[in-house]
């Protein structure tokens, strides 16, 4: 009887483990392969030795627009890529859903908004989004040079659509990168992401 109970507990824990989030801070970030808007294929494992930022994006989402219309996201992209960080903007909107774009449309947007990511990865099947458990736009992930996920969550601590909230906000992505680059552990490794839901295929 006791053994049965033990087995039941084991099975249940295994089930919970499956249900739990896709990625976990402090563990290796899952490898992926994705194509960017210029047709180039990237895999995470190519960038071992560098910090990698993943930014989930939907240009029509008011929370994303807050960070692009204020120039905040572009500033972060420029600052960190200039310091050797690989910055991937990821679009997981399914065809027909808000934020879905073709490669050409996205390239025009990047040019118009003066965005400066390393590349924009197109993920219309949602494979990459589901692999990382990306919930909202924006939803940010930071991976260290050893391939360990060191940050998963919101871009900052002001979960609003108000442009006025950007100047006083505490940016968790910059904080994680600064700390990790200084050899410190990340003081806020995970937060609740805020924004619009990622518009995955139904």
């Amino acid at each position: 009887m006791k053994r049965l109970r033990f087995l039941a507990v084991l099975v249940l824990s295994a089930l919970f483990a499956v249900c739990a989030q896709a990625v976990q801070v402090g563990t290796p970030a899952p490898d992926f392969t994705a194509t960017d808007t210029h047709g180039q294929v990237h895999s995470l494992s190519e960038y071992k030795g560098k910090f990698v930022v993943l930014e989930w994006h939907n240009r029509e989402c008011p929370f994303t627009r807050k960070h692009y219309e204020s120039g905040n996201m572009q500033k972060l992209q420029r600052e960190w890529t200039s310091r050797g960080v690989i910055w991937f903007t990821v679009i997981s909107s399914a065809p027909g859903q808000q934020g879905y774009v073709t490669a050409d449309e996205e390239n025009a947007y990047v040019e118009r908004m003066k965005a400066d990511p390393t590349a924009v990865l197109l993920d219309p099947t949602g494979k990459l989004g589901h692999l990382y458990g990306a919930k909202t736009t924006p939803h940010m992930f930071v991976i260290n040079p050893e391939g360990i996920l060191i940050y998963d969550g919101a871009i900052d601590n002001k979960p609003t659509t108000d442009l006025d909230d950007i100047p006083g906000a505490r940016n968790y992505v910059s904080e994680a990168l600064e700390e990790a680059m200084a050899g410190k552990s990340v003081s806020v490794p995970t937060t609740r992401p805020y924004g619009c839901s990622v518009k995955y295929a139904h």
Partner: protein
Amino acid sequence: MRRRLNWNFVLTGLIALQATTLICRAASASSPHAKVDLISEANAIQPGRILRVGLHFTLEKGWHIYWINPGDSGEPPRIQWQLPAGFRAGAIQWPAPRRIPDHSLMDYGYEEEALLIVPISIPSRLQSHEIKLGATAKWLVCRDSCIPEQTNLDLSLPVRDAGSQSGSPWHRLFVTTQEHIPKPAPKQWKLRALAEKDRFILEVRTGKPERQAVFFPLEPDQIENAAPQEVSSYSGGVRISLRKSDQLMQPISTLRGVIVMNSGQAYVIAAPIAQSNSPKRRNRP
């Protein structure tokens, strides 16, 4: 290229439209998806008393606005008041929300109609015979996509003595909304939440079996919003099994939220967390 130019044109139009809404002040404002009125429970202002006013949202079918804790996405409405000297606005009294699925996420908010009541304390001496209350409201209205909207609203009310005050046409709506505003949990209720590895078992002992209950967290990172809530009734009340939030890194001491019972009545609860190591041991002879 031509298409993009057209979009710019549309955007400029939208911005212009928004600017127009900003300039025009009224007790009522309409956007494509939400009609918002600033309304009062009473038809006059009484010196020294509390006046209940509210933002009344009438939403287009399929669209929603958010509760104080919006859940996995969205943001709650915000109000900035412009009030005469001595007037003070209290906090929004949020009615109990609904669970609103949003792709793989779960939001908490209101559909169809919502009244966000705000108590305004009135100074005991008033010079003028008419008082104008002003509010700037900002809200996010969502269906598949979200649109931030904002408007300025005005409400003018005469000043009257105690005897001559009566209800406004909105009085009834304030009364029915009041029924959905969470009350403090009754003193005789016993609340606790057993912390298991991945779940909290919230136990609400009311003294009688409770058929149904829904829990809405007031803290954003305590439970996984989208996980189904497993409700089990027992002789003394109800238990709800809630999945812990993936963002919950440190143990917590209290599970805070609003519980809506089968009757529709909502209560604010704070359930102390108890560690459940091996509850089954008690069954051993």
